[in-house]
């Protein structure tokens, strides 16, 4: 009589590879079938998810292009430096021979910035940087110099976009969910209506809202004109650098708020009715019920909703591509839009990958925060 371990030793290679160590030999068909059934999906996930993901990290350290006769070379951190370098630099005023500050037209005269940033041997670390922003500090002028003005704009826009969208959309979605979470006839009709934009493509929504936001005949300007009895001055919502990003935010909330409303609703329905009855018996009013029954019951949903919105918002691209192409004055540049511009339009896969890695780093931190927040009080 053979022991299980001995039988295993004599079995063919595939059995030894696939069968779990503690499983009896007669289950070898299970192991083979199980592996075969999972194989097609695993192959595709490997080729189109795992490999691209790992490649993003490798390629971002090279100068890989989509199509190139030359093999890619290792560049170290060059791509990341080119994207992320930020330096503060202080310009001191021009002084005349007596050491007094030179004024012209009522303002202090400073040396030209490009004397320092264009191949100045005394300032090699500033070479090629450009001014991002600057401010006055005493007589001096502090200048923030960056290597890639457009990418930094895109990064800031994306972070602003996500940090406005997350509380705004999450909060509105909760209000809608609370409104829908009552036993009224036809409530499902309203739920269906509020959710409808979610199934409409963002491409369609963006193009439609381009007309709504139009500076001349746009619906929004007309509506505001009617509501203010004609005193409202029409705004070119997407053509003005101050309104373009907020306009895209408002539209994005309109499109996606139903999605998160449904997640809140599912969360609301897990709160037992008996808790509300108990609260009523204790004399709790509407707000107190929300504060002490509803909200504590929604804690994990809240974290989930905020994280999901934030991660979705970090990837915003279609709105920019269809509505503004990053303009006006880079006011609507986004990280993914820049990744596509460089990785696809300019075929610079390496730089596009470096941008993707930066995006993943941000998303990873957000996801880990979620893990941490939901684990804490379980």
């Amino acid at each position, binding site marked *: 009589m053979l022991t299980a371990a001995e039988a295993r030793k004599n079995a063919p290679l595939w059995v030894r590879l696939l069968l779990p160590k503690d499983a009896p030999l007669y289950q070898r068909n299970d192991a083979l079938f*199980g592996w075969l059934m999972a194989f097609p999906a695993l192959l595709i*996930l490997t080729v189109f998810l795992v490999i691209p993901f790992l490649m993003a990290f490798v390629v971002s350290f090279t100068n890989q292009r989509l199509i190139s006769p030359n093999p890619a070379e290792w560049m170290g951190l060059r791509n990341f430096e080119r994207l992320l370098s930020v330096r503060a630099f202080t310009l001191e005023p021009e002084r005349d021979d007596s050491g007094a500050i030179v004024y012209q037209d009522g303002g202090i005269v400073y040396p030209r910035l490009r004397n320092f940033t264009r191949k100045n041997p005394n300032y090699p670390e500033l070479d090629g940087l450009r001014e991002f922003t600057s401010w006055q500090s005493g007589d001096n002028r502090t200048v923030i110099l960056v290597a890639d003005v457009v990418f930094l704009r895109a990064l800031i826009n994306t972070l602003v976009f996500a940090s406005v969208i997350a509380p705004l959309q999450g909060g509105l979605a909760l209000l809608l969910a609370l409104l829908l979470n009552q036993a009224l006839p036809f409530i499902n009709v309203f739920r269906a209506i509020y959710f409808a934009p979610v199934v409409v493509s963002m491409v369609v929504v963006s193009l439609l809202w381009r007309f709504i936001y139009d500076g001349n005949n746009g619906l929004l300007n007309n509506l505001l004109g009617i509501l203010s009895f004609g005193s409202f001055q029409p705004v070119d919502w997407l053509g003005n650098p101050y309104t373009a990003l907020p306009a895209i935010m408002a539209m994005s909330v309109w499109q996606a708020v139903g999605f998160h409303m449904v997640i809140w609703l599912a969360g609301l329905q897990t709160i037992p009715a008996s808790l509300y009855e108990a609260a009523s018996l204790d004399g709790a009013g509407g707000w107190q019920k929300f504060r002490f029954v509803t909200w504590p019951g929604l804690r994990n949903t809240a974290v989930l909703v905020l994280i999901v919105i934030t991660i979705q918002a970090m990837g915003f691209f*279609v709105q920019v591509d269809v509505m503004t192409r990053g303009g006006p004055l880079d006011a609507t540049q986004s990280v993914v839009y820049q990744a596509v511009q460089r990785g696809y339009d300019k075929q610079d896969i390496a730089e596009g990958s470096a941008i993707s890695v930066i995006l993943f780093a941000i998303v990873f931190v957000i996801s880990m925060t979620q893990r941490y927040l939901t684990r804490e009080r379980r």
Partner: protein
Amino acid sequence: MNAMSFETRHNLSIGLRYALLILIATIFIFPILFMVMSSLKPDLQMLRDSASLRAFLPVGDISLNNYAEAFERVPIVQFAFNSVFTTSVSVAASLLLNSMAAFSFAFLQWRGKAIVLSLIIATFIVPFEVIAIPMLLVANNLPWIGPEGIEIGWLNSYHVQIIPFIADSLGIFLFYQYFRDLPDELVEAARIDGASIWQIYARIVMPIAGPIVATVAILKFLVMWNAYIWPLMTIRSEELRPIMVGLQYFFQLNIAWGEIMAYLSMVTIPVLIFYLALQRAFIESIATSGIKG
């Protein structure tokens, strides 16, 4: 304060709630309504109507001219065929591949399964946008057996629009969760009766997986029908372009809003009808996908 006034107050509060519900509903409906109504009007009238409530009504010079012109300007039939083809193949293939993998994870024992499953769950946090660019490089270097033998590069084809999306970790996980919660006796009883593994999958487990099949199908349908960023990067020729990328024709040319609205209506109305018909299933799919955690 008597019973009457309480009832009046109650009715008033109900009335106010409906007023609020309806007011909010208009915010969601009116842009879509505007799109459909404008698609029926000549450009000049559409611009004039946008200053009043007429924008949302089928009034004035109503016709299907915009549709006819949109058909003339771009090969809509070809685009629609491409989208229907890539979407339906992807939905069907993803149902098969994801459910097979999930079945294996839920019911069969093989070495390394636990690690593979936890890796699949870990990939949830990788958004498509992160891998899109390196995926372009991968797709550009994969071999394919074409009519002239082995070719390198998948760009500009149907398969580059389909194959990368026919397995996804969320789909596998949703099936897995459903299978895991089925009673063990179901499978054990079939085994004792001598059913093969494939028979258990195809005849016993899949036929009762209706709700999750609907969920995975709907999620995949939405992703594929609305696909934009990936076909934008991988498809060059017009004959292969899906319907959302086809919209780009209208960006550059002099803006003919009526035709745009006609095109937008054509790509949206079928989805909206589909959604309204299967409303509960759509909403439940989203709720399930959101709660994956």
